[in-house]
Every structure is written in C-alpha cells, then in structure tokens.
C-alpha cells in the first residue's frame, strides 16, 4: 500500500515536468517523457502515450505516428494519415483517400508494409513476433496479396534486400531448432517454425522459374544450412506431416531451379535412396507422398 502511494506521488510530482496533453477528434491523450539512466548509455529517453478518453482507434493511429516521429523514423505524412479516417471525418475523407492512394507509389506501400513486419519481428513480445511471421505468410501468398506484393515480399525473404533482418530472423527460426523448456514455449516455437516454413515455401514458389539462382551458400549449404534443415524436417513426417510437406515442397522448388543446390544436396548425402529410406512410409499423407516422389525424380535425374 505504502509502495503504491509512493509511486503515485512520484508520478504526480514528476510527470508534469515533461508532459503534453493533446487532443484530436475528441480523443484526448497525454505524452510523457522519462529519463532512464543506464550504465552504458545516459541518453535513453522513454516516450509514453496514454489515452485519457475518446476513441481507441483514433488514439492508436495517432500514437503510432507520434511514436515513429519521436524515434525519428519515417513519419506518416498527412496524406497517409488520412488513410485511417476517424469517425467524424470518415465520409468526407474517403474521397480524398482514394486520391491519395492513387498518388501513393506502390513501392512506398510495399516498403511501409515490410517496415511494419520488420518492427513486429524485432519486438521483445512473443505475440508481436508471431503476428510478424503470420503477416509475412499472408504477404507471400497469392491468395491474400497482389502478385506485385508477393514478388516483393518473396524477394525480401530470399535475398533480404532492404530488410536483411527479416530474412535473418526467418532463417534463424528454421535453422535453430532448440528444445523448448516447457510445453507453452514448445507450442509457440512450433507455430513460429510452421509459419516460417510456410513463408519460405510461398516465397520459393513465387520466385521459381525466374532463372535466377539466388541461393547463397552461406544460408543454404553446409551441415547447418537450410537444405540440411529442410531434409531433417522431412524425417519428422510421422509427427509433423504438414511441416514435412512444406519442407519437401521447398526442397523440390530449390532443386528444380538450381543445379548448384542439387550438387550441394548430393554433397550432404541427400540422395534419392536416403530420401526413400527416411521419409516415405505408407500412403497416409498423399500430398507429402506426391511431393516426395517428385523430389526423388529430380534427385534421381541429377545423379
């Protein structure tokens, strides 16, 4: 009780030093700045926004802009802000929104989208990370995104581009298969890994047939590379058939598009015989069996 009182008192005493109370469209919120002294860095400032009253949707739209601005990140322009109309200006701004959307470059939209995914993946919250990978899953799927968006997102997944961290996060999700400490953690890792496999499979599908060998040896070759990891995933077909299917599908796309990667597979000892011995058992999983058969054919031809 005493601790609570002290905390409240300290908040009341100090908050007024650097506090702004702002209002937009009937939504009131406050912005507070705090100093945090750390051993390494004395220039750490925390910017916090709290909604006082009004619409949460408006608050979060504005908060995102203000927090981006405080971090000196790319601030949403007025035109972009109008893309999130508030209740009072919705009908009026809808016409303007259409106009601004037309003017907005498609590439800017793609970059903004991937920036959001990047920031979600970098957060230290598991739900945000999961949301980031799930978003990427949707962005690389032609059923949910435009062809241009799928192509852009797939390029980021496979080559990095301006978002090298996104690619590195995905690869680490696939390659690092460390045992979890408890059941909840295990479920979370499995879900993240499943999404990452799906993203990789989608991205490879999208970029297949473009006559570009974009498979870097650093990520794909070697005992800890993606080829070996995907093959390992195929071995667990009994317990995780869908993951095994996605891994097989990815391997098939890679081998169909790259002679070099087929050679890498043979170097790693992944031959048609090894595949037959380790992965294909029974007719329980027709999808997996079909892909595995295709894979066997491709590897058999490469001998």
């Amino acid at each position: 009780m005493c601790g609570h009182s002290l905390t409240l008192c300290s908040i009341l005493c100090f908050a007024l030093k650097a506090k702004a109370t702002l209002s937009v469209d009937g939504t009131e919120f406050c912005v507070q700045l705090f100093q945090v002294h750390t051993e390494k860095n004395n220039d750490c400032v925390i910017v916090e926004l709290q909604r006082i009253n009004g619409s949460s949707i408006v608050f979060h739209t504005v908060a995102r802009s203000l927090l981006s601005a405080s971090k000196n990140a790319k601030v949403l322009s007025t035109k972009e802000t109008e893309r999130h109309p508030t209740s009072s200006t919705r009908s009026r701004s809808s016409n303007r929104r259409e106009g601004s959307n037309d003017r907005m470059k498609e590439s800017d939209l793609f970059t903004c989208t991937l920036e959001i995914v990047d920031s979600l993946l970098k957060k230290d919250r598991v739900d945000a990370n999961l949301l980031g990978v799930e978003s990427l899953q949707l962005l690389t799927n032609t059923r949910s995104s435009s062809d241009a968006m799928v192509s852009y997102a797939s390029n980021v997944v496979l080559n990095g581009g301006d978002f090298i961290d996104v690619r590195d996060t995905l690869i680490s999700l696939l390659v690092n298969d460390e045992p979890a400490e408890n059941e909840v953690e295990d479920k979370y890792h499995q879900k993240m890994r499943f999404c990452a496999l799906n993203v990789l499979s989608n991205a490879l599908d999208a970029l297949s047939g473009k006559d570009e060998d974009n498979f870097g040896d650093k990520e794909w070759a070697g005992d800890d590379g993606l080829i070996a990891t995907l093959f390992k995933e195929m071995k667990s077909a009994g317990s995780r058939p869908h993951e095994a299917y996605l891994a097989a599908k990815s391997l098939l796309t890679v081998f169909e598009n790259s002679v070099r990667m087929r050679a890498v597979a043979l170097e790693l000892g992944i031959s048609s015989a090894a595949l037959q011995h380790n992965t294909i058992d029974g007719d329980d999983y027709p999808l997996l069996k079909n892909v595995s058969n295709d894979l066997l054919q491709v590897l058999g031809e490469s001998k």
Partner: protein
Amino acid sequence: MDNNQEGVSLLSSKRRRLNIGSSWMVKELPEMPYLYLKEKTSVVVLNDSPQHIANRIVESAKAMNCIGEYNSSTVSPLNR
C-alpha cells in the same frame, strides 16, 4: 477564464481548425518512477536530446491538427 477551463473549452470544440502554436520546452526530464508500469504505446529513444524528441512530437502533432497543453500550461491555439 483560467488556463484549465480554457483548455477544456478548447478540447471540446469540434469543428474549429486549431493547431499547436508554440514549441514544447523540455528542460528537465523526470526519472521513470519505481514500479511504474509502462504502457504498450511507448518507445525507447537512444542518443537523442529530449528537446529534439519533443520537437519532433510537436511537429507530428501539428500535422495531425492536435490541440492541447504542455506541462500543464495551455497552448494558445491558432485559427487557420
């Protein structure tokens, strides 16, 4: 009308286009209180002066036609 009353009346005005007309002077920042639970809508900014951060927030708020007050003193709005 005192500052607070004036602030309330400003906040309740819906149709007038008002904007923040002065800069937010941040001289001294408070320490993060002990046991203070940060909101999710917060960010940590490294290697930047508080005044620069405040200026950027104000610029962004201006772009969104926000009205309000800094450090409990009502900002005079500008009619545009």
